């Protein structure tokens, strides 16, 4: 066992409850100085709560925090910063119209006049850039930087405040594989300089690639801490879920049938005049899964919205079973459903579900005009809707199995199952799926993937948009990569690899390169 002085952070017996929900139960955690320590766990396992306690957002009900061997209380984030803790949030805390320099200095100014602080910061940034490969133009406006660079600014902010311990919350969710690699290189430099890094993630690949030790949380408890070099992804996954998990999706080769959807020259320019889609074209056939990969924000969302009938396209055509679809209005969603095109939207909280509704009310959301659900006098037939809701709950193993519970009270995975049950039970010929497992725990991911493959095997066409490359690779029969609103390339799923796809996601087609 390491001596206390070797420990950057030691948490002893931390407990925290919100009402009846115990988010953290008697948690012990020891993070050794100069290491990268991973924390994994399913959604709701208590990772974020634990880190929020460490960063002063919440106060623990019980337990002690020791930083560098000293007992410390952290009443707010200012205290955390003073204790040498820096945090890079999943959603950046940056002022977009400000320059990099101004963002770094913000809240850490030396006096009422900005000029001396800025000068000091400029010198410091140059040093940090040299030491850690953290190059960013100090005068660039943050809003104009790429997501990867914005993240670098967040790290610089923490280092500028003399952080010795850096907490990163799901840092790679928004990055291309090469940007993620660069981030890991930066983290490696930080480790060499004796900094301590805590990495919260659900991607086991990253845990294996970069961490020294990994702590697994489950249902508010710290299950175990493993030395990364002595463990395996399946062991970690098992610890997270509490049972054996299939990390790979079992599926037979696709047997594609007739072409169901033909997309031609689809373009979309938004109100600000930004081209979101640029002459996108592809086909989807019955019985296949077409995966659409890409870093978030490269037109995948807009593509789904146009196909689903609630974003008008600027030009181009989409034919469904040979017939052109109306792309001119944002209120075509019900026509699409009538035609047999189902849609699991990317954002179930904002679009796919009405959170304050009871489960049964969401079980027919979008299909509430179906003749079988109508009662007398313009009323809905609540009994019919509930009966269908119960069938969906049973088939998709929604827990708790109650159709009267408010939707917001289900976990993320179960909410997603409610959406999937609704869409898949209508037996659509084409199903558009966006981010099927975002915010969904590993156990439910397995189930959701099986359902998607089963739908394909029933001869349906599926368009799958996901920013998780693993998911795209595991499920797709063909993969289309989008970059900057255009199709960067198409690949057969069996004939590509992560590196190839990663280059396409960055807008580089190695194949086209070689041919030219």
């Amino acid at each position: 066992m390491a001596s206390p002085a070797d420990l950057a952070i030691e948490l002893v017996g931390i407990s925290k409850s919100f009402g009846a929900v115990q988010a953290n139960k008697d948690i012990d955690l020891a993070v050794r100085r100069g290491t990268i320590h991973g924390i994994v766990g399913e959604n709701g396992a208590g990772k974020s709560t634990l880190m929020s306690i460490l960063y002063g957002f919440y106060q623990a009900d019980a337990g002690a925090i020791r930083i560098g061997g000293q007992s410390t209380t952290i009443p707010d984030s200012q205290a955390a910063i003073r204790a040498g803790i820096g945090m890079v949030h999943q959603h950046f805390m940056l002022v977009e119209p400000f320059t990099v320099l101004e963002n770094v200095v913000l809240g850490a100014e030396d006096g009422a006049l900005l000029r001396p602080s800025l000068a000091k910061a400029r010198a410091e940034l140059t040093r940090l850039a040299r030491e850690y490969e953290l190059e960013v133009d100090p005068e660039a406006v943050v809003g104009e930087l790429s997501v990867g660079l914005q993240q670098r600014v967040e790290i610089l902010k923490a280092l500028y405040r003399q952080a010795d311990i850096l907490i990163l919350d799901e840092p790679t969710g928004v990055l291309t594989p090469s940007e993620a690699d660069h981030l890991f290189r930066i983290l490696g430099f930080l480790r060499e300089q004796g900094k301590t890094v805590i990495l919260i993630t659900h991607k086991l690949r990253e845990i294996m690639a970069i961490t020294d030790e990994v702590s697994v949380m489950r249902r508010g408890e710290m299950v175990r801490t493993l030395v990364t070099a002595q463990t395996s992804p399946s062991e970690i996954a098992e610890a997270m879920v509490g049972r054996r998990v299939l990390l790979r999706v079992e599926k037979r080769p696709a047997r594609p049938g007739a072409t169901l959807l033909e997309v031609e020259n689809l373009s979309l320019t938004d109100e600000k005049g930004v081209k979101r889609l640029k002459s996108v074209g592809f086909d989807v056939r019955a019985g296949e899964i077409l995966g659409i990969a890409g870093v978030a924000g490269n037109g995948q969302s807009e593509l789904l919205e146009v196909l689903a009938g609630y974003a008008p396209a600027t030009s181009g055509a989409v034919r469904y079973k040979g017939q052109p679809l109306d792309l001119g209005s944002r209120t075509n969603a019900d026509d699409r459903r009538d035609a047999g095109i189902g849609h699991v939207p990317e954002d179930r909280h904002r679009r796919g579900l009405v959170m304050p509704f009871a489960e049964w009310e969401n079980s027919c959301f979008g299909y509430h005009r179906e003749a079988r659900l109508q009662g007398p006098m313009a009323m809905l037939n609540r009994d019919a809707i509930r009966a269908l809701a119960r069938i969906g709950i049973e088939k998709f193993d929604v827990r708790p199995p109650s159709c009267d519970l408010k939707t917001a009270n289900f976990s993320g995975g179960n909410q997603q199952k409610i959406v999937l049950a609704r869409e898949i039970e209508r037996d659509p010929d084409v199903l558009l799926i966006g981010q099927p497992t975002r915010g969904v725990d590993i156990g439910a991911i397995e189930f959701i993937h099986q359902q998607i493959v089963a739908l394909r095997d029933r001869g349906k066409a599926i368009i799958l948009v996901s920013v998780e490359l693993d998911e795209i690779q595991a499920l797709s029969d063909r993969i289309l990569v989008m970059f900057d609103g255009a199709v960067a390339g198409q690949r057969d799923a069996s004939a590509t690899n992560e590196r190839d796809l990663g280059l396409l996601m960055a807008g580089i087609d190695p194949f086209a390169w070689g041919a030219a």
Partner: protein
Amino acid sequence: MKPALPRWADLVLIPALNLILAFLAAGLVVVFIGEDPVRAVRILIQGSLGSSYGIGYTLYFATTFVFTGLAVAIAFHASLFNIGGEGQAALGGLGVALVCLLVPWPHWTLALPVAILGAALFGGAWAFIPGYLQAKRGSHIVITTIMFNFIGSALIVYLLVNVLKVPGSMAPETANFAPGAFLPFMHEILGAVGIPMSRTPMNLSSLLAVIAAFLTWVLLWRTRLGYEIRAFGFSEPAAIYAGIDPVRITIVVMVMSGAMAGMMALNVVMGFQHRLVLDYVGGAGFVGIAVALMGRSHPVGVILASILFGILYQGGAELAFEMPAITREMIVVIQALVILFTGALENMVRGPVERAFLRRRTA
């Protein structure tokens, strides 16, 4: 996860605590001007609920507030803040007056259905324009509805002074309706079945208000349209995803809301004043906002809150009469305190109550 209160605490305990706080604050005001707050409360309650006379007036006021409160509540469910009840009710009054004046009605039973249509049509039309502007042009409904209050007020002044006034009269009001267009008073109805009641303005409209509240509940929680309204109100992107046309919902909801506000004319114009008087709405449109807030936009809550405001109106009038130191303006201050505590400061009580419940649950 946000801790949820039990339903009864949300619906009963918190409003009750708010009310007690409001009365304590109002009591301080009464003490401050050198009067006895306990006596003031006694007069308030006695004056509003102590006799069939008081009760009649209280419920007459409450009926008005039910209509304007439901109007605000319906719009709230679609996330639309209709503060134009004042103008919509004024126009509703015009609709009712025209129906009652233009046809020599032989009996109120014939006049009533047409008057309801008139009130709904005129009130609804006045809300249609802001609804259309919001849905199609993005003009914010709060701005447009309040502007339409002024436009409506000016329109009614013009009509009453130049068009509808009785020739030779000095008063800006229409001619009296023929008795065939009077709604029966409650004391007449009850008297007919042998229950004695003092003469008050309370009339058949009170029953209509209860029916309106029930139909509002059916609309919102039983019909497909209500389902779409609530979905739209919670999340517009979700509504669009579900194929619900936001333009249509916005306009339909605003028209229904305006129609409901217009119906208050049944109570005041057709049920009591029997002519259209200048500024007959008298702030009831704004009280509707407080009523809807306090009643949590639920029809039952709207009815209860309306009765409370009826008590404040009627009891307040008695109070001003019995305790001259408490002026009419003082009564408005007390009513304002109730609105402040039940509407604006609701979260002040909610936080501590939620924490108290959490402690009890975890203990």
